[in-house]
């Protein structure tokens, strides 16, 4: 179902520009959540590949408790995502909205959906075509970090942008 499509071509000039843009966005006051932020960008992923997106751009953003507001650090990540997606327009994407385990099941399904929609709206506002984007909420069903304190909960309140699927 989630199928990454290898780009058919990646102009070297544009790829270089993307790398520079990534480097320019990583600033010290952000939570480091990408390899680029941690200074590990060298050689990680072919430009335009899904690995490039995940490692160098950052495929996920995080939210405050019971909130779907796009935080400042998340805005920086989404700006990079939008730039990358506008460059590699062959990709359709699915945005997964997630909640932490500190809410009840049905409310968290709705909260995850709202986070996915807020993420989508931000990307659309930065020029990514809406018909490339699907959203899905997993509520609290798919935590990435499993412990019973805030260090895990803060990682689970997230929206993840997945590459894949044909544009509709």
């Amino acid at each position, binding site marked *: *179902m989630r199928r990454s499509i290898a780009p058919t071509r990646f102009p070297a000039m544009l790829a270089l520009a993307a790398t520079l843009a990534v480097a320019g966005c990583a600033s010290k006051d952000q939570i480091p959540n990408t390899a680029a932020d941690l200074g590990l960008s060298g050689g990680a992923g072919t430009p335009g590949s899904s690995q490039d997106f995940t490692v160098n751009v950052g495929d996920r953003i995080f939210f405050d408790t*019971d909130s*779907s507001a796009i935080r400042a650090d998340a805005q920086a990540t989404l700006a990079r995502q939008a730039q990358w997606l506008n460059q590699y327009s062959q990709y359709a994407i699915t945005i997964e909205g997630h909640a932490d*385990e*500190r*809410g*009840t*099941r*049905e*409310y968290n*399904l*709705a*909260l995850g*959906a*709202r*986070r*996915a*929609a*807020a993420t989508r*709206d931000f990307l659309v506002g930065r020029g990514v075509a809406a018909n490339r984007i699907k959203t*899905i*909420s*997993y*509520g609290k*069903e*798919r*935590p*990435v*970090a*499993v412990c*019973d304190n805030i260090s895990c909960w803060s990682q689970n309140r997230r929206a993840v942008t997945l590459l894949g699927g044909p544009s509709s």
Partner: protein
Amino acid sequence: MRRIARTLATFGLVLMIAGMLGTIPARALLQIDVTKGTVEPLPIAITDFLSGDETGVEISNVIAADLRRSGLFAPIDKAAFIERNSNPDAAPRFADWTVINAQAVVNGRVTQEADGRLKVIYRLWDTYAGQQLIGEQFFTERSKWRRVAHIIADSIYERLTGEKGYFDTRIVYVDESGPRDQRVKRLAIMDQDGANHRLLTNGQSIVLTPRFSPNRQEITYMSYENGQPQVYLLQLETGQRELVANFPNMTFAPRFSPDGQKVIMSLLRDDGNSNIFTLDLRSRNTTRLTNSNSIDTSPSYAPDGSRIVFTSDRGGRAQLYVMGADGSNPKRISFGDGTYSTPVWSPRGDLIAFTKQSGGDFQIGVMRPDGSGERIISTGFLQEGPTWAPNGRVLMFFAQAPGAAGPQLQSIDLTGRNKQTIATPNFGSDPAWSPLLE
């Protein structure tokens, strides 16, 4: 108490209560007041029913276990019995029972009819008054002996408490296995005492929030099997599954209306908010009940169908609201410190149970439908999703301790007494209690 012959048609079974066995109308000499915060469980002797095989012992054990789990009865150890095998055709030797402090005695007999069916008769006696309180007989397929035992336990419970029983019921819930970040979830169903456990889905898709139809034959639930999470129906007898309606966006939080004709649920809007709709199962028409720029979810009907309680964050954070069945006049009812969700209306109509998050804990509580009389029944690290026993006296929910690998089902009396963990093969969540069959 006078009951005429009735027929219970369930899953092809015909179970008959053939009639009363000469009940002497007695004043309620023996009565448990279930509304008190503390109750001394009533000592009761459940004798082994006379039978040619183990069935009599097994029936009496199921009855005793049901009554014991309710917290209102203390079945006496059979080793203490003086009169071991009591013949239900004659009055027990009451002095032999009062001397071991048995306030009530149950005796019975199981025989096999020429057609292979079981005939079960039993009587409930008040030992101090020296009177029969109940006498009934049943005919059933041998395989359904547990149901007969639960029905007998319900009759004893009702006769001695004045409240309907809840033992001839089932629980549908979500069986959880595997690691927490890749949890496998399957629908499962079992009798309320854990017997006859059965998995209903194969675990390939996430399934959530199963709920019974009023006739107990159908389940509505949410599944990810179609890619987009949606509300489904499952026929218990045939195993047939059906998408309720193919909406472009997620549908979730389903429940049946009290007449079973509609499913009420949340539908995600394109803008990320969720509103409440009903779907008429015959006409397939949908009706929008809320239209707010907020999360409106977890709708639950009052038992008379006139009103709906739901969760909404329209005021900023999740709170409980009550509106008319047509969506009219929504009114906030929860005003305590914290957030409120998962409201579910009691089958008696008198209370709404909910999950409350306050001070870092999760709480299970109840309030009256006008929001007054809020009372917290259970508090813990993570506990959620109450469901009512059909008599409105007992709640079941799921709970997970910090550091635990998964959640378990728990039940608790409305008074906050008698919290019990329900044994399940794996972890369990999202329980829903079936109605009683009338």
